[in-house]
């Protein structure tokens, strides 16, 4: 019964594939996987736009959208219709072809990245040996899309906004990749399926063996989530857009459904990064405690994903935005050293796994935790003290 419910989608796919003639089976299987990923995550995007508006509304002490359908549930549909029927304006001096291609280049690689994510037990579209690298390679193309959008609009705000966005994405890609490398080091594989499998089993018979429950894993998770927030241009790192400085950044000359595509790409990127964080550090589709194992694996995965989304909405509703220079300083002077030290911590954790003497596990924990906490405290203190507080000077506007 439990395994039946757990594998219901896999079984359904196998049943549909078995109905097809032999020559077509592999293609049908691929199309089903791709269609399922597209359908599920596009509807999750619709749901998230509503949840985000509702959540932000609640944080600001107002009800949020509640007119369209029961509890405002049909609001995403109305938004979509509005976006589809809006006039698509392309500036006369814009580079027509590249202006058209940019939203497509934004969405397609992000959707591709979902192929390697295990959404449940036996629920991954493909299992590459270098799955993690594939994920990051697919994500790298979005920078090109941002540049294409900014440059082809032939608008200085768009170009400056694109430069800002690219600088931010390139800077935060470094800590993001380095923080996920700790997991690769520990597991010894870049296949996301094997990374999830390495987190099966339970500590003391009940607590899951997630990487987030180790010192390096916890630090890695925090660093990864922070850089994922920046990579997805989410608040408090959403400076590529700024009403008072560069208006909508690289999106300034986009309207109608192309704008919606950029939004879709951004949200899908956020979901895929959250899903990667879950896969790497939070056990993927594994249950957190042994007596909750009867819940289907995909329910765990999407539950964790919704938890991540709620976290991002909460952060957006509560934290103020950073300035560009603060953002860059944070990435290169704070995140990068911590990530490098965390690599050392992971290596130490790996080598001390074979320690056998009295209280070895406790010592191992203490040393690794100190390697995480001490640099954090010292670096944070130093950066805080070097901060120049005082009246702001406006070099060009005074």
């Amino acid at each position, binding site marked *: 019964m439990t395994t039946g419910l757990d594998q219901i989608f896999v079984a359904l796919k196998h049943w549909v594939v078995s109905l097809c003639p032999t020559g077509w089976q592999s293609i049908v299987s691929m199309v089903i996987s791709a269609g399922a990923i597209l359908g599920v995550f596009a509807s999750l995007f619709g749901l998230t736009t509503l949840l985000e508006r509702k959540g932000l509304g609640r944080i600001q002490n107002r009800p949020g959208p509640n007119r369209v359908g029961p509890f405002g549930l049909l609001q995403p549909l109305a938004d979509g219709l509005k976006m589809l029927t809006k006039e698509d304006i392309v500036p006369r001096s814009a580079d027509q072809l*590249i202006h058209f291609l940019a939203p497509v280049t934004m969405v397609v690689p992000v959707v591709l990245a979902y192929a390697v994510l295990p959404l449940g037990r036996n629920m991954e579209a493909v299992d*590459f*040996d*270098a799955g993690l*690298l*594939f994920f*990051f*390679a*697919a*994500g*790298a*193309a979005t*920078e*090109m899309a941002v*540049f*294409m959008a900014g*440059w082809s609009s032939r608008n200085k705000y768009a*170009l400056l906004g694109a*430069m800002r966005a*690219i600088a931010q994405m*390139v800077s935060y*890609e470094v800590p993001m990749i380095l923080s996920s490398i700790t997991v690769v080091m520990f597991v*010894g*594989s*870049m296949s996301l399926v094997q990374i999830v499998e390495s987190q099966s089993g339970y500590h003391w018979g009940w607590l899951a063996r997630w990487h987030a429950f180790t010192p390096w894993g916890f630090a890695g998770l925090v660093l990864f989530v922070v850089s994922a927030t920046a990579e997805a241009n989410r608040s408090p790192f959403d400076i590529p857009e700024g009403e008072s400085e560069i208006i909508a950044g690289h999106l300034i000359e986009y309207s109608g459904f192309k704008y919606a595509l950029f939004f879709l790409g951004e949200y899908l990127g956020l979901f895929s990064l959250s899903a990667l964080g879950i896969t790497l550090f939070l056990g993927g589709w594994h249950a957190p405690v042994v007596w909750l194992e009867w819940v289907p694996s995909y329910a765990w995965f999407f539950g964790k994903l919704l938890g991540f989304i709620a976290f991002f909405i909460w952060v957006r509703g509560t934290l103020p935005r950073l300035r560009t220079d603060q953002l860059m300083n944070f990435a290169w002077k704070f995140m990068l050293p911590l990530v490098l030290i965390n690599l050392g911590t992971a290596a130490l954790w790996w080598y001390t796994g074979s320690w056998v003497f009295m209280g070895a596990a406790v010592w191992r924990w203490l040393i690794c935790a100190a390697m995480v906490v001490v640099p954090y405290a010292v670096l944070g203190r130093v950066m805080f003290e070097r901060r120049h507080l005082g009246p702001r000077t406006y070099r060009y506007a005074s």
Partner: protein
Amino acid sequence: MGTAFCIAALLTLLGGVGSMCFRNLVHCAFALAVSFVGLAACYLLLGAEFVGFAQVLVYVGAVAILIVIAMLLTRNIESKHEPLVAGGWVMGVCVAVLASGSLILCVVNSSVVQGPVSARPTMSTRALGEQLMGDYVMALEGIGLLLTASLIGAVVIALREKEER
């Protein structure tokens, strides 16, 4: 296999031709990115997963962006009046023919091509990593040193400009 290879090869070649032929420099950079993607597809068809993905990550994600940003920092990127073919094209063609000819000769005469066709090796990423960190660690470190040196050089050049101001 045949069709897939044709598409990948066409993408690479057209991207390469485009990167030489467009009048707008930024278009050339985009064409170059397309050519990188085509090359990555070729690697994937050869079963070199790691190299293919790394090609996209490094070349499309970093090098193409670097080229584009460097381009925007230079002036006159959209001059429409300059001739498409630069003056010394005869020499250029000679050098290109010599270089590609010697490369093709080397490949055709090499023992890999002339020997019996061996089965396609299945190389796992793990084995590749072990090779890189074991047998070829000196080469890897050497390349790393070279890149670091060039990075420091770039920083030094940038610093000197600032002092002159």
